[in-house]
């Protein structure tokens, strides 16, 4: 079964491309102190908005900071936001989904109606409102993105639990006296992780996109901390004279989100070829 997965995954060129992008991003963000050519916050007012050159491959911004260095550091921020936010979403979503699916009846009804209510809010505006009230720090952003993104995972996990809890191995676990806690976390959840993994990969892409949008609007990651989104903001102000300020971070966001989506879809198709549509 495992080798089948890798066989199908490696045959899927788009998925491999996505995986390569994701791995590259990891490498870049972990090595950012070593590979960034300049200090991302080093201001050089003699060299403001200079176009891409040998010294500054991606040019400089309105304060003379090296765009490439800022983007390399920004990759780490994106990654952090993506993973922490998705981690929160999985934690909340998996637990609520597990409880709803396992206990059923009114517990299920209450949790799933709560999910429906949460899905009714346009989540981006909810995030905007919450960030406007709270302080726009990177941790607040991660938490808010996470807490508005768990509903899909709840639905997935619940559906898996409903079908898995009737399986004989779960009955056998009850038969040897296993507690509900043990049955949920030891027996059912590990068997429901496949769909969660796919949702998580796609969720990371969504979280990165949301973070960029928030930063672009100025209520995300606050300057001087570099983020692809706030580099874009500077780009917007100078778009007629400094195209590189918009193009490179925009491309970075595009490629990253595409990479995660391709990887997620690749994992899904390789886990179960019947799901491929």
């Amino acid at each position, binding site marked *: *079964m495992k080798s089948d997965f890798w066989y199908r995954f490696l045959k899927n060129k788009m998925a491999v491309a996505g995986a390569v992008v994701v791995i590259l991003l990891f490498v870049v963000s972990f090595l950012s102190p070593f590979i960034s050519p300049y200090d991302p916050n080093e201001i050089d007012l003699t060299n403001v908005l200079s176009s891409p050159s040998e010294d500054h491959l991606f040019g400089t911004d309105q304060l003379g900071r090296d765009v490439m260095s800022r983007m390399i550091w920004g990759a780490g921020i994106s990654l952090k936001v993506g993973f922490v936010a998705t981690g929160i979403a999985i934690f909340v979503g998996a637990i609520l989904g597990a409880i709803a699916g396992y206990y059923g009846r009114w517990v299920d009804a209450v949790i799933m109606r709560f999910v429906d209510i949460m899905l009714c809010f346009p989540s981006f505006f909810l995030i905007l409102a919450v960030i406007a009230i709270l302080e726009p720090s990177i941790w607040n952003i991660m938490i808010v993105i996470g807490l508005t993104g768990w509903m899909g995972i709840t639905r997935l996990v619940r559906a898996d639990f409903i079908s898995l809890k009737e*399986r*004989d*191995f779960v*009955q*056998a*676990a*009850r*038969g*040897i*006296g*296993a*507690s509900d806690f*043990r049955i949920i976390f030891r*027996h059912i959840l*590990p*068997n429901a992780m496949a769909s969660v993994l796919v949702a998580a990969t796609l969720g990371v892409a969504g979280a990165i996109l949301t973070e960029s949008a928030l930063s672009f609007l100025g209520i995300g990651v606050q300057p001087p901390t570099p983020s692809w989104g706030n580099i874009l903001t500077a780009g917007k102000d100078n778009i007629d004279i400094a195209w590189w300020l918009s193009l490179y971070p925009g491309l970075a966001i595009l490629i990253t989100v595409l990479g995660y989506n391709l990887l997620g879809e690749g994992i899904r198709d390789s886990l179960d070829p019947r799901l491929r549509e």
Partner: protein
Amino acid sequence: MNDLLLDIRGLKKYFIIRSGFLSGRRSVVKAIDGVDLQIFKGETLGLVGESGCGKTTLGRIVSRLEEPTSGAILFNDENVLLYGGEQLKNFRRNVQLIFQDPYSSLNPRMSAGAIVGESLGIHNILKGKEREERVAKLMEVVGLNREQLGRYPHEFSGGQRQRIGIARALALNPSLVIADEPVSALDVSIQAQILNLLKDLQAEFDLTYLFISHDLGVVGHMSDRIAVMYLGKIVEMTDRKSLYKTPYHPYTKALLAAVPVPNPSVKREKTVLKGDIPSPINPPSGCAFHPRCPFRMDICDTIEPELLDKGGGHLAACHLSN
């Protein structure tokens, strides 16, 4: 031999099915409708019947995986249906299940050793090395190698998986093992191995079996006494010999006629059942078997026959022999 281990009294299990979204119409499925059954220490009680007759539900209720609608189950003279919490947990040590489908009864994400040894951890029996040793012993007892402890279920064949399921059931040293169609998902050649293993284990560990099957041939091979179930009721119950020699109920006769005989030249009385088992939502009036019965009488349409002693402890519920 004659010590009572399990005494099931007036057991009923009704499932309520709501049909219609607004009308709220309810229909009741009588999966088990008043079953009395005794199991004695050290014996094998066979429970036969077609699929849908409630035999699996009965096994699941006895092992407390499902709650009955009414009735009592006395285990060593205590009503286990009143158990909860720690008492229930202790009761589970005494009663273990072997499942029908070895492909769905083992957690695909746990190794064979973890599956077999899990119950020892839950009940805090043995630790560390001793537990490992016990798990390895159990594997050997059911005919597997201790080297296979680290393997995962998909690396085993169906018969081997069923052996793991049996080892799991034995880990807690139960006194009653409920085997729910333990061989019907296996190849015929493997069936015999598993049946013989179950017999050997019974002798070795003083086990009592409730052996559930739809195959009277298999049940006959295994059981000391046999109960025949039809639509949630016991219709005939006696020791194996007299069931084979003098079956009273036409349903039992039909089941016996369906058992293949190795010698093709043997001529037998053929009773072939027509139709399917009726829906338990709307069971026939009188004797539930009458629409399919070749010996049907007028009385069968209206009056339900009682389970009566036909002599020598041979119980049957049929007007024909009254």
